[in-house]
């Protein structure tokens, strides 16, 4: 990264908004949280501008801004939270009083580790790119996609840019603030051929400046077109138990949803995860190593420090198949008597933080992706996932494969659509028997929902093979073997 001006040089900052200096803000927080065991003031300003291109023209041009604070007071297992979109020293003080009123107090405040954050993304708030240039870009993407295939009937392109400023103030004097950029482009299209319809969609982005979108779109547009072409001719998916090979990158959404969530500290201390008490035990095949890494440069799930002011890090969750760590915010770390891992995150100032993943990925292994596919006589290759859902208590999950291929005698033969993968999160990674040497992170499109809060995340993995018995493929193909009743 080029040398960057730092946030404080280019922003008015929150101290200006509040009309106070750092020392007196810390004092306000100290007073508000007196007698508390933990807690902090979280200040946030965010501006999001978005453009949506549809049907050959701009369909919507939008801008929203939001700002506010959340004051959190923790005593024991209990959290009190007051949030408001009026940032003022007065309203923070008042919130502190409200919280003191419902708590016993008299606790000792748990100090947090002090550090100087190393920014992982540009800290200079960038000048806005004129809207005319962005509209021209969207038109160019549309024209490009249409020029690639005469069967294209609809193209939709959207871009969004978020400029977020965050400040965290703790009663022990920890004061952190930074700029958190986020950009995203999405390209989707519909192909129609006689009666068949195929849709394709690709997105990319990260914690970067908007200029990135002007450079990188063409490769993603090509991928979206290829996906639509394949879906146009895709057959219905066969159903049953079979070997499944996952492609690199985004298909790791299963790793995040069906496995990662069960390693979040709150699910552990609330005893709602199948991995409670399994530390040191084999929970995945020995070829599997999984990390959560908030400290990668510029990725969608990256943060220099989490939303409680803990430095983010690389946490090895599973080492050679053995459970090595859980993910913690400050509360779950305290309850379980370990150090916080920098995974305390929140959607906004109006939300209470909880343990969340950042960039969660499986490390590369020994096999080339070609060898992995070659090894399968009959199975399914899941190259692009739509999304899925998991019941954290039972570990049961369902994922929809956007585009899959039949594997027959070591070759990808026909594209298939509508494959639904069902399995159990605690078991599926025990069935991994080949790990590719092509690890990749996704393109920067993930959003994770938990208890009604959405945060941006990254996922990644190499090509992996799940032997038969790990997953059930539920297809849309109707000729399943009729059961004799």
């Amino acid at each position, binding site marked *: 990264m080029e040398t960057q001006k730092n946030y404080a040089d280019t922003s008015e900052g929150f101290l200006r908004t509040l009309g106070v200096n750092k020392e007196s803000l810390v004092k306000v927080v100290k007073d508000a949280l007196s007698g508390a065991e933990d807690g902090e003031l979280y200040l946030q300003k965010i501006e999001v501008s978005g453009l949506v291109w549809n049907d050959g023209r701009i369909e919507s041009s939008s801008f929203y801004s939001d700002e*506010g604070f959340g004051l959190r007071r923790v005593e024991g297992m209990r*959290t*009190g939270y*007051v949030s408001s979109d009026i940032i003022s020293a007065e309203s923070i003080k008042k919130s502190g009083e409200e919280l003191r009123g419902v708590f016993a107090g008299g606790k000792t405040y748990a100090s947090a580790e002090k550090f100087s954050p190393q920014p992982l993304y540009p800290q200079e708030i960038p000048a806005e790119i004129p809207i005319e240039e962005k509209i021209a870009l969207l038109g160019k993407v549309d024209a490009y996609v249409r020029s690639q295939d005469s069967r294209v009937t609809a193209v939709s392109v959207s871009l969004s840019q978020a400029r977020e400023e965050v400040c965290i103030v703790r009663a022990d004097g920890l004061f952190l603030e930074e700029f958190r950029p986020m950009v995203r482009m999405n390209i989707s299209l519909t192909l129609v051929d006689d009666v068949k319809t195929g849709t394709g969609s690709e997105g990319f982005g990260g914690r970067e400046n908007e200029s990135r979108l002007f450079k990188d779109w063409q490769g993603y547009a090509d991928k979206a077109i290829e996906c639509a072409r394949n879906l146009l001719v895709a057959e219905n998916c066969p159903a049953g138990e079979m070997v499944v090979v996952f492609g690199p990158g985004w298909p790791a959404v299963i790793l995040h949803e069906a496995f990662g969530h069960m390693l979040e500290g709150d699910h552990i201390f609330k005893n709602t995860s199948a991995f409670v008490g399994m530390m040191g035990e084999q929970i995945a095949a020995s070829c599997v190593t999984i990390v959560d890494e908030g400290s990668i440069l510029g990725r969608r799930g990256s943060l220099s420090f989490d939303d409680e002011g803990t430095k983010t890090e690389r946490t090895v969750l599973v080492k050679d198949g053995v459970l090595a760590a859980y993910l913690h915010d400050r509360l779950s770390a305290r309850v379980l008597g370990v150090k916080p891992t920098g995974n305390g995150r929140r959607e906004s100032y109006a939300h209470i933080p909880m343990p969340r993943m950042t960039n969660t990925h499986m490390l590369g292994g020994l096999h080339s992706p070609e060898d992995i596919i070659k090894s399968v006589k009959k199975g399914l290759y899941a190259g692009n996932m739509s999304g899925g*859902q998991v019941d954290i208590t039972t570990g*049961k999950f369902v994922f929809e494969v956007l585009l899959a291929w039949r594997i027959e005698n070591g070759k990808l033969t026909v594209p298939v659509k*509508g494959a639904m993968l069902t399995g159990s999160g605690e078991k599926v990674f025990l069935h991994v028997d080949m790990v590719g040497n092509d690890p990749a992170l996704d393109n920067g499109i993930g959003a994770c929902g938990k208890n009604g809060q959405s945060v941006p995340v990254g996922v990644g993995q190499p090509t992996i093979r799940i032997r038969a018995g790990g997953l059930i493929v539920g297809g849309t193909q109707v000729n*399943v073997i009729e059961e004799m009743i």
Partner: protein
Amino acid sequence: MKNKMKNRADKIFSLVRKNGGTAASCSFSQEENKEASVRDGEVETSHKDDSHGLTLRVWFGKRVATVSGNPRSEDEYERLAERACAMARANPEDPFALLAPKELWPENIPECVSFLELADTYSPSLADLAEIALKIENAGLSVSGVSHSGGVGAESAKSSFALFTTEGFEGAYSETSYGIGASFIAGEGNAMSQWGEGEGVRFFSDFRPFEETGKIAGEMAVALLGAAPIPSSRMPVVFDRYVSDSILGHLKHAITGGLIHQKSSFLNRETLGSRIFPFGINIVSDPTLPKLPGSFPFDREGIIGKRLDLVKWGVLQRFTTNLQSGAKLGVIPTGSTGNLHMENGKVSREELIAGIDRGLLVMGFLGKGVNIATGDYSRGAFGFLIENGQITRPVNGVTIAGNLRDMFMKIVPANDMLLGRFNAPTLRIDGMTVAGR
């Protein structure tokens, strides 16, 4: 609130005109939320949140842009308005961006608002909400077989909304909502099951007794214990009331004017006026019902809330349109829908199930595998196995699949729809693919 907002809107409108704008619409919202959650008899979180917001849409001829934010001062209101003007000027023309004409407004808004009874007067404290949650949790935990609480929460919200346009629209209303959510877990270790129960009302007194809610949720978690996949087969699937309104959701999505215009729905202009459900099926949107959660006097564009027959005697009556999609399709917009429901059928739920030799009763879904463009339907599901007309054992880890076009035509509704709580009756759909072991 209305007068203050009206003054502010007037100021914004004159600023827009001064910048060369030709029209504008402006809405204000204000909200106060309270939420408490408990677990294992202890208060876990208490959260109070206040927010306000402005959404401004500005026209320069046919160029239009939308901004929103939560300005704190006159200066910030002005800055936001100026940004909207700058954005609109830069945008290309949009012939389909319109302001609602007077013919679409309610005639007498204050009368509408008072008829609809949108707001309760009860304002619970955080402690009151915690107490409600504790009551529910207590009832759930006392069910034999429930091993622990997955957390219980209660919330209340008071909000107001005001809309002004340069065409002269002026309307405002306040409303309330209360909600609870409870989750219970049965079993231990590798054999656990979970059930989540939620309820949302506009009037506090419309809640079921809290003890009953807790008991039902706990019993359901226990009933689901030991769920396992079943062999793949084609069989009748019964959608319990907990999930049957999802079918209405798919219909609602599929008849959205914007999708019809884009040809991105499995329903299309040719389907309009033709049979898409069996004869007895009527599906209605009615936001004019007093006290119900989905009622409103006018929607976000100022279009009056009115009863719409979407499906009558099984025949698709109309697409739902806003100003933009109405203009694209060349029809008068219907405005937003509310309290969308399917009218009751003739048979009881028991009779519906009694006729099934082997089938699946679906209580919940995992995953959202529905493709509205093609109607392909494939969702992870859990519930109970039906054998010889009886519910025999819990099932999970299965996928149910079909195509919405065929599924719609095979629907048999029971007569247990309860407007405002369960907006569709229990539904039976034969011949679906159930993929399991």
